């Protein structure tokens, strides 16, 4: 026998109805949050009648603040459709599926919009009217899917129940008999916890995208951190190193009495290596290296530079360093030859500039001083008036003691700055 559970109202939490069903049977098929299909085979030993079982289902749902309606039938289709249509408890007798479904509206079969429109034009309103059509004739006109629809309307099952696996939590906790203070003994304990955890992940073809660790301290506080490397990893040694490096940078305030590790699973992806391209670094090694540069990464001072879509001078972004495979054809790009580069001063250095005949003649700024021997400019730029407006006149100047610099006049403030050295 099968059971259908449905809640016409919003659920207090997404998995509430599934949790109710799992209290009765492990074979549960969740169709979105609601309805839920239960395989009730074998429960006849615990409940004398189907009505008793149905009432128990509704009572269990009510205990979880779920206003549920239930249907028990000998086919899955009938149990699901009747549960959605009829309030309270409905028990469909064996062989009475078609009769139970017949008066119900056709929309309960979750038809495609085109099918719904077509059946409305044919004058079909109830499931019983659809069930009375010959399946072969309907298949000839609308295809095999329509024939299957007739069987569903008659309360007949096709296929098998696909049980929804219960959500897995990759979490492990170790209560310590004696408090641990140093990182060295902690390393052994972490290995002991991480190896089964990563093993469980690997058994499900998954890796950990992040690892949250909580250390219960002797002073009853909790030291909690979440590590999220650029790439998922399923290697216990890597995670142990990352946790230890993180703890080195942020030491717990007191001795550790409890360790809890929680991994966030993500499907492991196998990468196809290329024979002719250089090997990409292993994600584990890259994550370890970046963790060792914690002083730079924690302050947001490491990553890949990125250009941003703006004309504002000196604008750029820094993204996390996660190199991907080399795109096809990239290596065919011809070399560009050496270019003059700007060595940017951040922030630009305030300068005193003597202008002669509209051209900078002398520049003095911290670390930069000299008479201008040649100048190229002015190049005017302005923009971002809606945000942080800028308007400037830019010059490339060569100075007598040596060096070429980019200077600019901030037209909004009326001040000169040295933006950087041309090198």
């Amino acid at each position: 026998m099968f059971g259908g559970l449905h809640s016409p109202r919003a659920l207090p939490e997404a998995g509430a109805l599934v949790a109710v069903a799992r209290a009765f049977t492990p074979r549960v098929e969740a169709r979105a949050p609601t309805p839920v299909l239960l395989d009730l085979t074998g429960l006849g030993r615990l409940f004398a009648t189907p009505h008793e079982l149905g009432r128990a289902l509704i009572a269990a749902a009510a205990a979880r603040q779920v206003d549920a309606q239930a249907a028990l039938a000998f086919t899955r289709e009938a149990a699901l459709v009747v549960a959605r249509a009829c309030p309270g408890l409905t028990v469909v007798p064996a062989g009475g599926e078609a009769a139970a479904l017949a008066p119900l509206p056709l929309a309960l079969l979750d038809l495609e919009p085109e099918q719904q429109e077509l059946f409305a034009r044919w004058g079909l309103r109830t499931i019983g009217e659809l069930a009375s059509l010959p399946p072969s004739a309907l298949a000839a006109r609308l295809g095999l899917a329509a024939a299957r629809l007739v069987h569903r309307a008659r309360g007949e099952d096709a296929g098998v129940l696909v049980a929804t696996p219960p959500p897995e939590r990759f979490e492990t906790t170790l209560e310590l008999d004696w408090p641990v203070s140093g990182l060295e003994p902690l390393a052994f304990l972490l290995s002991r916890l991480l190896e089964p955890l990563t093993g469980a992940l690997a058994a499900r073809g998954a890796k950990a995208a992040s690892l949250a660790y909580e250390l219960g301290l002797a002073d009853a506080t909790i030291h909690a951190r979440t590590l999220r490397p650029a790439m998922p990893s399923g290697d216990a040694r890597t995670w142990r190193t990352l946790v230890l490096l993180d703890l080195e940078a942020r030491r717990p305030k007191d001795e550790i009495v409890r360790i809890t590790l929680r991994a966030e699973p993500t499907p492991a992806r196998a990468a196809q290596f290329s024979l002719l391209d250089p090997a990409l670094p292993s994600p584990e090694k890259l994550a370890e290296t970046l963790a060792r540069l914690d002083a730079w990464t924690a302050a947001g001072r490491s990553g890949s530079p990125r250009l941003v879509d703006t004309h504002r001078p000196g604008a750029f972004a820094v993204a996390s360093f996660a190199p991907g495979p080399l795109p096809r054809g990239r290596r065919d790009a011809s070399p560009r030859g050496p270019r003059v580069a700007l060595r940017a001063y951040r922030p630009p250095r305030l300068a005193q500039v003597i202008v002669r005949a509209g051209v900078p003649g002398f520049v003095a700024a911290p670390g930069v001083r000299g008479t201008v021997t040649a100048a190229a400019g002015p190049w005017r730029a302005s923009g971002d008036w809606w945000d942080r407006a800028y308007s400037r006149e830019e010059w490339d100047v060569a100075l007598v003691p040596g060096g070429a610099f980019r200077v600019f006049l901030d037209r909004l403030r009326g001040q000169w700055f040295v933006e950087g050295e041309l090198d």
Partner: protein
Amino acid sequence: MSAAPLPAALPWTAPPDVDLAPAAPCESPGAVVPTDAVTPPSVAERKRVLENLLRARKLQADEPPLRVEDYRQRALATGVPELDTLLAGGFPRGELSEIHGPASSGRTGVLLALLARTTAAGALAALVDPLDRLDPASAAAAGIDLERLLWLRGPRVSGEEPQAKTLAEATKAVATLVGAGLFDVVALDLAGAGREPQRLPFATWQRLERLVEHTKSGLVLLAESHVACSPGGRALALEPAGLRFSGPPGPACLLQSLAARARAGGHRLREAELTLAAV
């Protein structure tokens, strides 16, 4: 409602009048395709093609090394013919090399060319920049694949010269990057740091030399004057040789190029003229 007749069985096999020969290419409609054109190549043929491909690739010095190849045999070319000749192929792997020169001598342009060449080949590069001088727009214009460049930026310093602590942190980061063995080029930009690099203990550079030995990485220092170079490394000294503008001073005048003289070698100095185009 009457049932419509079911369709006939689907034609799983082509009828005898259908030609199953492959269609002619789109470029030449109606062309007759010879029967041997569709014959798959034999195993021996495939093997020969693959071996040719591998052999050809091995002879291209600018391509990244193959997985099984000895990395240390391949110098890190800058992609600038004059410099690569001067450096006997490029900066060697497993050695500490340096590029030094005064302001506007083209040292940053040369370093960016090296990083561009390295990243364009698919390898990774790291730049430790304690003074935060890198301009990402210049790096992109030089052809660097920014996704493959790890940039470690120093903190903002109020004075002209960085604190000794910043440089010590930078050398520590270089040691981490070299030890990781992930990067083909690890560069440390010390240009503009004044005399601070010379004040660092000499053991710092010896330690870095030892770390980079027997790795695939080439460690390159960028400085104003000579700081350190391992015995097998290359020291490239650059001197400014003038700027070229597009015309007389005026609104249409552009900075066209920067000329530099490059010298390399120990007791036998070699020189080359170098021109860096303005962006």
